[in-house]
């Protein structure tokens, strides 16, 4: 039982690329540690799947996927969509704060 070697290598390379980028951002203080958790867990799960493909086989068999790579793709897409959705909500919240601050600056001149 073995998953496509190319996919396993790709997962490993991808995971290390993500680790490298996150560490670089944290060094430059462009990302806070709380925000890095998602990416580190994301990359960590790639490593687990690359080293222990049995995990992907077991789960995709259990859920009835035709192949473990399909299962991995759908998980990655789902996680990214969730991330995108929460980011969109976060941007809306930030925009509201920016607007409130901008209005406050203008109104203070008038008090």
């Amino acid at each position, binding site marked *: 039982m073995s998953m496509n070697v190319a996919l396993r290598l790709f997962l490993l390379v991808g995971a290390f690329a993500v680790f490298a980028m996150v560490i670089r951002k944290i060094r430059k203080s462009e990302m806070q540690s709380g925000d890095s958790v998602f990416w580190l867990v994301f990359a960590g799960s790639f490593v687990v799947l690359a080293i222990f493909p049995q995990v992907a086989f077991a789960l995709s068999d259990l859920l009835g996927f035709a192949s473990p790579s399909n299962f991995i793709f759908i998980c990655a897409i789902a996680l990214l969509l969730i991330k995108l959705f929460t980011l969109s909500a976060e941007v809306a919240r930030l925009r509201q704060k920016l607007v409130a601050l*901008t*209005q406050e600056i203008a109104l203070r001149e*008038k008090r």
Partner: protein
Amino acid sequence: MKTLAIIPAYNEEESIVATVEELKAVASAVDYVVVNDGSRDATLARCREKGYNVLNLPVNVGLTAGFQAGMKYALEHGYDYAVQFDADGQHRPEYLEALVAEAEKSGADIVIGSRFVTEKKPVSARMTGSALISGIVKATTGKKINDPTSGMRLYNRSMIKRYAYESDFGPEPDTVAYLVRQGAKVSEVQVSMRDREAGESYLSFSKSISYMARTCLSILFLQWFR
């Protein structure tokens, strides 16, 4: 009755002086505030030169937030009525008195300066959009609003409070429809408007399409969850 004309201005250096001068000359009973929404041209400089009352937003935040800043100003300074007044010269100040009179007489929360109360809607692409919005407002609220896209709307004190406090409350037809559903009383007064004197129209073709999509979606769907 203290009435405030809120004049949102984004890059309106060519028309802002004429607009404010006309407003001051024709409707001297109405106070005004120019909301400079982070203009990159000389809008602020023109206003300062002339000593106009300006609320200066340091960055561009868009019409909704700019108008809301005006409403916060109206609330803080104890105005009974606030009316949106375009900086580009489309709105005629001689009608402001009639809007206030209608609000006083009818007790309406919102009085719309409408182009189509006694006048008929002309046939054009833009008016088809206007008719469509009228139709869905009527269908969802039961209230017939002849000119839902008119920007010339007068709000009373209770509406000023709501606009000042709530987010995502644009001076747009979907907000008016939402307020009607919440029990606000809307009245319309016949006015005439000018074509734009300067600058480019806010609504280009692609913007018109996305405006219509957003407005219709908001009235038909999103506002039931607000």
